[in-house]
């Protein structure tokens, strides 16, 4: 007979469930074991699992880090006319939400469409910078897929690959890379000249290893042209998909890289902040997901030479895959990342 109290906790899809402390502990153990197997990294220690059990075995609505160990909160998507104008939204994030950094962006959140409206975006950046104190980034996605048909000029590798036309798919991606690099550098340099404090290459590698290569090449060029600019590279997934399979950067094959190796390349390219991602398994508990996320990112955080801002949001970093992430899940994941990984920000 089950004599343990049941504790309210979340599944990865956001559903509230009730689990015993033993069940939560079992999920933590399973999550770290799954990550260790998959990413070929060490599992969490007994002490770390016990700490996660304290966090996820609590029925409290909200939890937080110890006083004095707070980290920087950087935001993507913080100025998008949710309430008022974009600049007013950014002022709200600074003055009401206490955001440490804020981010201007266009609702069509990719560098390619922004290229055509850069003067308007840079003007908005200029105006915003006069009105806020917090550092302002400009954010967009590299989104290499937009350079393939029907959105762009090169053949669509996602259509070629299922047909077994591998060489053509690879050639198409290689053709798209310099186009994406040119657009990203153009947008970033324009923002720098308007006065932006930084840029955020958000959801990098979403289209796979060629997308990641374009991002790294753009970061190198932006660093060369804009020496005082903050450069954040946030990832789209926990490992780099091998849509091409053979592209390399700095002598390293990009397909299949996990966060530690991603971070090393990003730092060498000249970025100043790295945002690792671990995707959520919606069918598992948040406890299982946080153990898996911390296990995968721990080697990256330990060896980082630049700040690590873990992605903790809808469907990543053990926050539920739902439009309205519950604060109990968000605060537990945030605290766990700070306590276990010693991240610099979220």
């Amino acid at each position, binding site marked *: 007979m089950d004599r343990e109290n049941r504790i309210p906790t979340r599944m990865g899809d956001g559903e509230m469930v009730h689990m015993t402390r033993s069940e939560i502990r079992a999920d933590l153990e399973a999550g770290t074991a799954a990550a260790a197997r998959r990413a070929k990294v060490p599992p969490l220690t007994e002490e770390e699992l016990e700490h996660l059990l304290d966090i996820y075995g609590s029925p409290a609505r909200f939890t937080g880090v110890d*006083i*004095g160990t*707070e*980290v*920087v909160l*950087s935001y993507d998507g913080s100025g998008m006319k949710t309430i008022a104008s974009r600049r007013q939204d950014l002022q709200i994030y600074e*003055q009401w939400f206490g955001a440490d*950094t804020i981010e201007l962006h266009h609702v069509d959140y990719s560098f390619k469409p922004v290229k055509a409206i850069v003067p308007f975006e840079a003007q908005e950046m200029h105006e915003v*910078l*006069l*009105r*806020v*104190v917090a*550092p*302002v*980034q400009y954010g967009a996605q590299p989104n290499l897929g937009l350079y393939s048909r029907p959105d762009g000029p090169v053949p669509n590798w996602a259509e070629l690959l299922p047909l077994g036309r591998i060489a053509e798919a690879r050639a198409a991606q290689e053709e798209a890379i310099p186009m994406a690099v040119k657009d990203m550098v153009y947008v970033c340099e324009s923002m*720098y*000249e*308007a*006065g*932006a*404090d*930084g840029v955020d290459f958000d959801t990098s590698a979403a289209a796979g290893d060629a997308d990641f290569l374009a991002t790294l090449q753009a970061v190198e060029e932006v660093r060369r042209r804009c020496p*005082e*600019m*903050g450069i*954040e590279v946030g990832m789209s997934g926990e490992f780099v998909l091998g849509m091409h399979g053979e592209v390399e950067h700095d002598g390293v094959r990009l397909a299949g890289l996990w966060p530690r190796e991603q971070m090393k390349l990003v*730092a060498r390219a000249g*970025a*100043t*902040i790295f945002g690792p991602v671990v995707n959520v398994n919606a069918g598992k508990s948040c406890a299982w997901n946080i153990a898996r996320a911390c296990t995968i990112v721990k080697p990256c955080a330990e060896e*980082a*030479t*630049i*700040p690590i801002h873990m992605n903790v949001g809808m469907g990543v970093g053990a926050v539920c895959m739902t439009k309205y992430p519950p604060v109990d899940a968000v605060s537990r994941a945030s605290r766990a990342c700070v306590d276990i990984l010693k991240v*610099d*920000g979220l």
Partner: protein
Amino acid sequence: MTRGMRLPQAKAHVADKLGVSPPDLSDPVIMNEVREKLGFGRITTFEISHPTQPVAIEAKFNIADVLGVPVNSVRRFAARTAKGGSST
């Protein structure tokens, strides 16, 4: 964010420049007084107004000066206005 400095080092640098301890940086009571003293800008609402103190870009000039960190928008502002030498 422009220096790629990890958080413990960044907190130590800022705390040293401000004359506080690193944990003080996230204490709103202490930092309200520090920000007022150094002209770093503070939260303003209808009820809490301080119209004679620096805000926005004005505050960023003070932050760049005290922390010894170049701020892109401050540098651009200075270059585009009389301080940049275009007007005397």
